[in-house]
């Protein structure tokens, strides 16, 4: 049975009988490319002074829902705990302690059903979460473009025999990447007939269109306040503008990484938290940490499955990891 949609068809049967799918030659190659990419990323980060840590899986709070995605709650000895939808709050704690850190962090987000057919959303996925203390978002972008270029170029070389079997030819990535602001991105899209809300995040289809128009890896920077989580730092010199970025793959593959300079001052975070309509009391340990003071940090996350999808030139993200969980589809 297939769920037909304008965008992508979810191969429900392949997902339900994944024990068969995983044995196909193509899946084997994809997972080998993924393992290679993971090794290359770790090598680069380790050699640049980043400390790999074990990721948190559950905690009293996680990143508040992103674009309408729901968190998973569990009963933790009578108290409610959340499964990490992103370990962002922990990254600030760890970078304050160790300076430069990263982890491969499994995240769960119960995305709205519309996300099932975008070809780029899974309910369970892994992020390479990177955070560095005492640097601004420009420095984080520089880390991101270097890391991504190194990874793509190295996988293209060392994984050539695998990519060849997939018929995939990767372009050479050379940093620095092109950078456009969110306002410029909205304008470019407007010129291509897309009328967007200038104060919201760019919707997925338009982001894909933009990635096709620009044709090379590029950053969108300076999102408007309200379009992103409370932890993206607002530029003190440009109220309403956040010091954050998305990094996009070329060829219409969409978002590669998302990052920002972090809001780290207690009173600012408190006010921003209210925007999500939540009671700040829920974020007790985090706010206490901020009140005692932490180092300013910047960082970003790279989705491993999206990276794999790009490297292998896959149509849809569910081909880019073992036992994929497509939103709304019950599968092992």
């Amino acid at each position, binding site marked *: 049975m297939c769920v037909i949609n304008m965008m992508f068809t979810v191969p429900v049967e392949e997902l339900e009988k994944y024990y068969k799918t995983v044995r196909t030659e193509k899946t084997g190659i994809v997972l080998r490319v993924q393992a290679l990419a993971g090794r290359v990323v770790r090598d680069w980060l380790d050699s640049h002074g980043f400390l790999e840590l074990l990721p948190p899986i559950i905690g009293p709070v996680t990143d508040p829902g992103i*674009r309408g995605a729901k968190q998973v709650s569990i009963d933790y000895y009578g108290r409610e705990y959340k499964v990490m939808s992103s370990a962002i709050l922990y990254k600030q704690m760890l970078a304050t302690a160790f300076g430069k850190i990263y982890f491969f962090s499994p995240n769960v987000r119960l995305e709205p*059903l519309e996300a099932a057919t975008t070809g780029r959303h899974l309910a369970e996925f892994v992020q390479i979460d990177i955070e560095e203390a005492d640097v601004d978002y420009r420095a984080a972008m520089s880390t991101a473009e270097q890391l991504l270029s190194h990874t793509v170029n190295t996988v293209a070389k060392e994984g050539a025999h695998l990519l060849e079997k997939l018929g995939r030819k990767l372009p050479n990535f050379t940093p620095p990447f092109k950078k456009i602001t969110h306002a410029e991105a909205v304008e470019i899209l407007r010129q291509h007939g897309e009328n967007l809300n200038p104060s919201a995040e760019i919707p997925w289809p338009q982001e894909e269109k933009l990635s096709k128009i620009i044709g090379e890896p590029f950053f969108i920077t300076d999102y408007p306040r309200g379009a992103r989580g409370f932890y993206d730092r607002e530029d003190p010199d440009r109220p309403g503008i956040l010091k954050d970025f998305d990094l996009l793959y070329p060829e219409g593959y969409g978002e590669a990484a998302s990052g920002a300079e972090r809001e780290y001052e207690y009173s600012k975070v408190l006010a921003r938290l209210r*925007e999500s*309509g939540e009671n700040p009391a829920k974020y007790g340990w985090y706010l206490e940490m901020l009140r005692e003071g932490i180092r300013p940090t910047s960082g970003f996350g790279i989705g491993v499955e999206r990276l794999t999808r790009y490297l292998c030139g896959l149509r849809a993200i569910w081909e880019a990891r073992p036992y994929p969980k497509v939103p709304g589809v019950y599968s092992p």
Partner: protein
Amino acid sequence: MKTSPLLGLLLNLIRKPGTLGSAAKFAEQYPLADVYSRASKGRAAVFPLTELDEFGKALLGAPIYKPAPTRHDTLDSILVVPPLYTPLRLKKMEELMREPVFSDVETECSFGGFRSTMPIAVASMGSTPVWNKVSLMVSRAAAEAGIPMGVGENVATVWGYSKRVKPSQPCFKERVMTYLENLKGPHGGVFIQQSVEDAYDELWNRVYSDPDITPYIDEGKVGFEIKLGQGAKPGLGGETLVDRETALRLSQKYAFDADPQKVVKQVYERHSAPGTFTPEILGSMIRLMHNNYPRARVWVKMGPYRDLEKVAELCSAERADLLWVDGKEGGTGLSPVAALKDLGLPLVACLGRILKLRHRLSLDFICSGRLVDGGDIVKVLCFGCSAAGLGRPFVVAAYSNGVEGVRNYLETLRVEVQLLTSAVGKYRVSDLGPEDIAATDPSLARELGIDSVYG
């Protein structure tokens, strides 16, 4: 007279500790008998002849006495004032090729991103047991009638999201799905509130990713309502009384007057926070809603705050779909006496401010606060609101006569809105304007920016 369900409601109120006084006061100060009569007789209640009367024998006249002196200006000081010359009636006559009558008035309209068969929305009522218990009857009748309906705060947190936590109390999703599944045609929509405590469980995210609700979101039939206080207690958070079992279950999420784990008593005061707002916080909140829930309508509901104009300007600039203003007369499950007496702007003051704003803002308004009949609704529309919000009458109608009671009640409103709209020579509710009303007090007229009955 079928009084048992209504008596049941009152007995229920009386049985609850500490509510004896309030039940008696409610019966005395709220037009219960009027709503009861509408719910049981339907449109016959619009023309007040009882079974004993026969036309020609009854002598009727305008009810000019107020039941009790009011403490501040109310809608009772506003009258609908028909003209003799009615160019729009002439136009309607050209269209119909006959003299128009009141039933020719189109009550269909659009507001807040929803279409509606009438300029009426069912106010978001929350988790108060007396209301929650009959909420499914109202959900069904409102959906069938094709008018938008709200689901208030704390329902999911207190009564469960998709499973009942108490057999007698419907859970959140029953209220939402009963409404959505009974919609017919293009009219109606449900708007859902989330309190700080509901946000703990990410109610909106849960709704937005719920497969049963998704098709309705896709159809544009779902909205989220940011609640900025309510008429009966502007500046204060939700207050209610719960039994020990409920208090124990909710002890992690709400503040109680005593810790139910340590102090054993029958009833606990459950407090929730009013929420902290600045223009930056509210502005970003609306943006966040558009960003996170692009296929949902964004409604904002505020209490009668003195900075109404500033909030309205912000809502308009941030492209909220609608601003709902609940006047100080608005209903409540529980509110401190001092708040009911002394907090907030009366409805008529809110309406005056909206009248002045409506031309420079692109924003739909709804007002609520002790609105009971078609006259109240028409007056609210004349002040520039797109619809009127009603809450309590639906509770009384449901207790009086179940789903049928709510249907009957809505029918009386429709007939009265048509009668009064046609009386001022208009045949679309959206044509109503400030020229159709006048205040009985010249200084009130001046303050509101409308005519005085004295010309």
